[in-house]
């Protein structure tokens, strides 16, 4: 699977996320509270809502529409109405750039 240059490390505040679109798909890139970067599918599994407008608290991201919550490290759905886990993608940081494998 190809590695894609998604953004610069300082494009994302700590404990926050941004939206990244590539190849007709949408992703969410996170700057975790542990300083590491993570990537998941960009939309909530409950409904087609972009997670980039949601709130990141610790290692959780919440959908801005219905408050479905996910652990963005594993994609695990943690709060209803989200029942289906979020897809996650490998991430690496090289020369202050965040790359995701899609």
């Amino acid at each position, binding site marked *: 699977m190809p590695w894609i240059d998604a953004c610069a490390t300082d494009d994302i505040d700590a404990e*926050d996320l941004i939206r990244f679109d590539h190849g007709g798909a949408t992703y969410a890139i996170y700057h975790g509270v542990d300083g590491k970067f993570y990537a998941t599918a960009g939309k909530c599994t*409950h*409904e*087609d809502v972009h997670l980039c*407008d*949601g*709130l990141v*608290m610790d290692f959780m991201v*919440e959908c*801005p*529409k*219905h*408050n479905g919550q996910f652990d963005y490290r594993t994609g695990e759905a943690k*709060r*209803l*109405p989200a*029942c289906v886990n979020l897809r996650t993608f490998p991430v690496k940081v090289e020369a202050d750039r965040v790359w995701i494998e899609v």
Partner: protein
Amino acid sequence: MGNRDYDLFGPDAKRAVESGLTAAEWYHSDVPRKVMKELMARSDGPAMRDTVILYGAMIVLAGLGIALWPTWWSAPFWLAYGVLYGSASDSRWHECSHGTAFRTPWMNDAVYQIASFMIMRNSATWRWSHARHHSETYFVGRDPEIAIMRPTEMAKLIVNFFGILDVLKFIPNLVQNALTGPSAAERTFVPQAEWPKVQRVAQVHLAIYLATGALALAMGSILPLMVIGLPRLYGAWHHVMTGLLQHGGLADNVVDHRLNSRTVYMNPISRFIYWNMNYHVEHHMFPMVPYHALPRLHEIIKHDLPAPNRSIAEGFAEMWPAIKRQLAHQDYFLKRDLPATAKPYREDFQLYVPGMMPAPAAE
């Protein structure tokens, strides 16, 4: 569009899906990400304070009501207790179902379960019903929480100020849920994995009501029911009054909350009971902003919203004639003027939905 069919299995429900209305993106006012993060930030403090005040007041008022029972001197205390039980529980149920009232999840869940019981809603069913209400606000046939259907049955609207229709609908539903789980209509929006939970919650609620009824029979007095159950009737008027203002007389089948929701300035007591849901356009546009941050959100985006009504009375004065007009003209709705600083209404979708009339000339 003409006559509306609010049946969740009806032709309007089907049309809303086929036309793409249910998949359309809602309009949002612009708020910088940094500001929105601050607004969405959670804390336990405001909701803990309000919950202590609410439950503390309920205990004191019910205690005085019981102490003065059965004299008429107890009536004012029951009336006040009833509003906290039968109306404040609506807003606590609502805000905690969003999971935004408290930062701590178990506190949200605890208040949500208590409020669901008091407002006579199955906590497992209504979480999903309300999610649909936010995804598809006032989409005919899709939104299960449309309070004012067109044409409005005025007598029912007025009777329900005392919760009578809600309770008459709730009791058979409670029994059915307790015996067989969710109804066919409920199964359209509650995922199958949650159906056993719907049944368990109904069984717990039913058991409490049966125990309360049995105690009343044993005592030969309705006093136990004055504390549990009946306040949902005699104290419902405030949540019905504020609830009707949320969307009454406004547009349906649109994807701009400025067209289908209403913000009303209210007195501090009503805002405590209603937990700031008078900022209803703001709440629908950004449902993850906690109730205590809605006044701040309002200040930030009010340049993009129609002017709020300045009081409950003014809200009714605007809404009531519109509801009456919808008796004869179902496609009529109030379209409030936007300030010069606002972006135009997003009403293109109305024209796109097959079978819908173009937006009528409105006042």
